[in-house]
């Protein structure tokens, strides 16, 4: 790729206001935190609030005993493939409402099949189930799910103004049934997906019908992921009793409850080992393939599978690195600085498109070559060396990704995504990632930090292993897979390696078609079709989330 076409150059010029190829610069002249608009805002608020609360608060002079942040350029960041620039602070999830909402929208979702309930109604209770009764039931549940009563007297209820983001919709692979469902309740596969993807999805779902339930964001914020299937199951059972005029408490109702809590439930996150001390529907339990299916980029721009993978990568960075590793697992705030490397400044985009072009030219397109040693070696080595050479040609790029783990993630992501695109096989893709890590370590003589490197030293050996304690098909891995339990900085790219294998082949989904359909929903607060743009809006404070409490707190 010619120098002038490097995708990252524009961002580098804005970040440093110097030639990206210049090796020398000046330090210690930037007046520390005063160079940053956001840090100045922090100081202003910190000073004001310290007076109000009477306890010392945010004070940048505490940094390094009086040497504040900003001895070098506190560089801005560009959300990749957008025109949005922001400060690093704006990409911490505490400061970014869109990031919070992405996670809340995932956590507050459960999918519950309706077929078991319908079977109980028809065969055991002798009730008639028709599209009309289903529509009626859905109307009742849309009243009940946000937190309203349906069969009991003198009940407390939730304020609709606090829970208006809570609702239920359904989808089915049966076009005739779908036609008879009230459109207000339907996720219409034909309307939301390109025709070829819709055909794949409908064939996978068949005549079954599934509910997609969104609990209120305020519940997702105040309770845990395990709450969701309980909340939904209670309201489903009560709504069934109401809609089908059932006896409250007879044995058959227990079967509704069992179906709604267990048998027909698909949670977004699997349960983790007890030592993690988390329930289901928490970030650590979301398999890579599920997160990829939650991302909806593949249905809006299927002609650009590289872009699709990059969008999924950004969600992986925020969910796994910023939320899970950076907060649940480690505490503190440092991981954001690290995790932004895969979705800012068009760096990974440049590496991925370089790999995609290489694959197209040499292997005739995406998903056309069978995985082989020759292919993995060729593509992973070429993209790895290309990426490393960019850091060496452009000192400003090296300075942008100033941590070795950032460079290792971005370079190996480029290699893994390219192998996935070529083969349509995510396990081959992850093997390319591990070759990249070993090449990187020997080329630069450095890689990441201890914990980063350890997992990549043994990754080659477990990439094709299927034994239960050490291997797993790659789509089903995630931070819940033993070797990835502290796989900081890897999972965003791993998300893209899964996505690229399938988007390269034109697949409508990667791992679970039900999850792909469940998030094809325009009424979600977060825009899962363009996560990077949405994170950018969050950074610019232009994103309106759900879960606001202004109705029940004093006005400012």
């Amino acid at each position: 790729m010619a120098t002038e076409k490097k995708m990252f150059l524009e961002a580098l010029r804005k970040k440093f206001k110097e030639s990206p190829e210049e090796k020398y610069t000046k330090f210690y002249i930037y007046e520390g935190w005063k160079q940053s608009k956001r840090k100045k805002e922090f100081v202003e608020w910190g000073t004001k609030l310290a007076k109000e609360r009477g306890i010392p608060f945010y004070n940048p002079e505490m940094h390094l005993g009086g040497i504040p942040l900003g001895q070098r350029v506190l560089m801005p960041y560009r959300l990749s493939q957008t025109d949005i620039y922001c400060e690093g602070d704006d990409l911490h999830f505490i400061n970014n409402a869109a990031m919070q909402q992405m996670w809340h929208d995932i956590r507050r979702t459960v999918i519950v099949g309706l077929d078991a309930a319908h079977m109980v109604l028809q065969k055991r209770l002798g009730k008639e189930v028709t599209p009309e009764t289903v529509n009626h039931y859905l109307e009742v549940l849309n009243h009940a799910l946000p937190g309203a009563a349906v069969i009991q007297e003198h009940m407390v209820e939730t304020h609709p103004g606090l829970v208006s983001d809570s609702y239920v919709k359904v989808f089915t692979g049966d076009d005739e049934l779908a036609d008879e469902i009230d459109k207000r309740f339907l996720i219409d596969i034909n309307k939301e997906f390109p025709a070829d993807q819709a055909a794949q999805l409908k064939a996978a779902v068949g005549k079954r019908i599934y509910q997609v339930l969104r609990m209120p964001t305020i519940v997702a914020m105040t309770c845990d992921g395990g709450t969701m299937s309980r909340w939904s199951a209670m309201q489903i059972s009560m709504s069934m009793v109401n809609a089908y005029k059932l006896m409250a408490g007879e044995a058959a109702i227990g079967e509704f409850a069992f179906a709604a809590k267990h048998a027909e439930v698909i949670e977004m996150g699997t349960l983790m080992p007890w030592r993690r001390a988390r329930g289901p529907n928490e970030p650590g339990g979301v398999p890579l393939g599920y997160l990829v299916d939650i991302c909806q980029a593949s249905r809006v721009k299927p002609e650009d599978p590289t872009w699709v993978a990059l969008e999924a990568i950004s969600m992986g960075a925020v969910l796994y690195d910023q939320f899970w590793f950076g907060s649940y697992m480690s505490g503190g705030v440092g991981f954001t600085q690290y995790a932004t490397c895969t979705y800012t400044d068009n760096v990974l985009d440049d590496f991925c498109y370089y790999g995609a072009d290489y694959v197209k030219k040499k292997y005739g397109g995406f998903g056309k070559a069978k995985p082989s040693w020759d292919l993995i070696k060729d593509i992973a080595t070429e993209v790895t060396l290309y990426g490393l050479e960019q850091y060496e040609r452009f000192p400003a790029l090296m300075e942008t990704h100033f941590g070795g783990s950032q460079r290792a993630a971005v370079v190996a992501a480029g290699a893994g995504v390219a192998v996935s695109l070529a083969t349509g096989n995510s396990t081959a893709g992850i093997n390319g990632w591990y070759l990249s890590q070993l090449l990187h370590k020997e080329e630069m003589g450095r890689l990441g930090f201890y914990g980063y490197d350890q997992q990549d030293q043994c990754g080659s050996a477990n990439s094709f292993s299927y034994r239960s304690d050490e291997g797993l098909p790659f789509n089903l891995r995630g931070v819940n897979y033993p070797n990835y339990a502290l796989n900081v900085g890897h999972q965003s790219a791993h998300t893209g390696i899964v996505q690229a294998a399938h988007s390269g082949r034109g697949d409508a989904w990667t791992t679970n078609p039900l999850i792909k359909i469940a998030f094809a929903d325009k009424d979600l607060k977060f825009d899962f079709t363009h996560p990077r743009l949405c994170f950018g809006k969050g950074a610019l404070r232009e994103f309106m989330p759900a879960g606001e409490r202004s109705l029940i707190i004093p006005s400012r």
Partner: protein
Amino acid sequence: MVAYKPQYYPGNSKIAKNRKKYLDPSYKLKKLRTISDDDLVKLMGHRVPGEAYKSVHPPLEEMGEPACPIRELVEPTPGAKAGDRIRYIQFTDSVYFTPLTPYMRAWMGHTRYRGVDIGVLSGRVPLEARERDLEKVAKELVETEIFDPARCGIRGATVHGHSLRLDENGMMFDALRRFVFDKKTGEVVYVKDQIGVPLDKPISVGKPIKEEELREMTSEYRVDGVPFREDKEMVEFVQRLHMLRTEAGFDPNKVKGI
């Protein structure tokens, strides 16, 4: 059986040869500068020069150790014998043609020194050892060709700088400004110890090594120096290693002819 002769490192480029050289303990590192024992102690900041070593246990010979074949095989280091506490020295090596990269620094430590515990990160390499052993090792690490005063830093914390551009004097960034370039003497001078505590008197660590010399001495592959892709033996070595590990992980019986 032919006697085993360690190769230390693969590859046939200038960089690979430098790597082999630094890892080979039979190669004597060239001394380029002299730092007094007291100045080195001050730079590390663990004790005051002349102060006795603090100990964490009595001397081994007073402890009445249990019978143990490993203890008989391995001669304790002087620091271990004396019961010294474990202290550290930590280096940051710039990406711009420094003699050692972090992995080279770590592997070299393991091939050359006993009783050291070394970690590797992209931007720093901590080396821990019993205190009197550490001082001996540190002397060689700072006085010889593997240390460039401008592009290698002795930094206990806030190590940030290895990947940043160089300043107008060719110095690696250091947020704490522990070291400064003295324009009058042309030497690099430490004004703070490795953890950032100001020193009573500045300590010179000598003149920066010239760029053209660094390019000859470095163990870093770089596209603007010796590109990794041109060292075909190196590339193929890593690819083979990866293939063998992958196949062994899938089915150890697949691995033949190692």
